[in-house]
């Protein structure tokens, strides 16, 4: 029994494991009708793009509460990408206009409290723009890599 215990402890010892190299984590929140289909097209047409993005599918870009962005930045994300249909192309007629107004305010506020403007980015990608989606992800990843890891207001820095 004791031997097993020792083994487990030795496995879990943090100094035995080398610290992993930092890789940016980007949370991508994509609208179901345009950008998610666009990212699907990127995949089916075998276009390469950075694997740092974690995609969440939402019914419409107006479904994205600013709360989601704040929560992502507070927990694991180093950057957030939100993408929806082009203005005028919304599946629900005017959803992305609401989203656009909300994002402007959110971005302004996050800039005010000390986040670099490249941490949170918005783009419009239609279902036919697979190549554009790859470009957008590449650009966002490069921006976030330049800025480095995000430590501001992270949950784990304040664990009690």
């Amino acid at each position: 029994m004791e031997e097993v215990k020792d083994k487990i402890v030795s496995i879990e010892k943090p100094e035995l494991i080398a610290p992993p190299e930092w890789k940016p984590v980007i949370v991508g929140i994509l609208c179901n009708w345009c950008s998610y289909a666009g990212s699907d097209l990127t995949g089916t047409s075998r276009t390469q793009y950075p694997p740092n993005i974690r995609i969440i599918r939402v019914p419409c870009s107006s479904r994205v509460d600013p709360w989601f962005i704040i929560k992502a930045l507070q927990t694991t994300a180093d950057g957030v990408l939100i993408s929806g249909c082009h203005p005028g192309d919304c599946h629900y007629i005017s959803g992305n206009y609401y989203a656009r107004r909300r994002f402007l305010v959110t971005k302004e506020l996050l800039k005010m409290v000390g986040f670099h403007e490249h941490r949170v980015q918005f783009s419009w990608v239609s279902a036919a723009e697979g190549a554009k989606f790859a470009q957008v992800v590449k650009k966002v990843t490069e921006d976030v890599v330049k800025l480095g890891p995000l430590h501001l207001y992270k949950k784990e820095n304040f664990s009690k």
Partner: protein
Amino acid sequence: MDYSKQIQDIAAKLFAEGKIDVFVGYRMNGFDDNQVPVVINDPKEVPALVFTEKSVFNLSNYLKADHTRNKRVGLVVKGCDSRSLNLLLTESQVKRDNLYIIGIACEGVVDEKGQKMQNCIECIVPDAVVYDEMLGSPRGKKDYIVNADIAGLAVKGLVERREYFEEIFDNCIRCNACRHSCPLCYCAKCCIDQETATIYNGSNTASSAFHALMTWSLHLAGRCVDCRNCEKACPSHLPRIFCINRTRR
């Protein structure tokens, strides 16, 4: 600026005519010269009503409580209070027919130390914008003064702004007094209340304060009327208005 006598007369008259069920005003707090809001049901309590430059709190906040909802209410409003009342009327939270509003042509209120409050110095609409009866002589609109602190903060670098706000979030104790004192936060169940503490990381860390205050500011974006009841209520004396002012467009 002492309208105590006029307000007492009006309140007594309204109660006698049966026009109102309750009256919301200020009274002395009983142990120093500061004032607290009071809700009066009984005409006998009318002589306790006062209004001086120490009447700082926003009374339109009390229209969302149960003891005034669906009743005919008499109310005293200053310029800033009337703006928030106007927003409550616009968003169909209170009925105009149920209200008897005593507007004040406000000359500015003072804080506990006797200094004129910062928002009164910057106030551009000191007169009540919605009222049944106006006390004092209207002073008209003033020119907009940009808050020097906000203007200074906006041109500062990312790092300075970050340090400034880190201190604010660090000193926040998550008591939610700002959300309770805000006249525009009338949701019966609020997403930043401690009931949903698991979502907001519960404990009062800078991280959770960041999350809660940011969300709260975004819910008020474009609606804030600059009454600064949140600052008056904050036990940590945090200048919360900076967040909101930037989102006012």
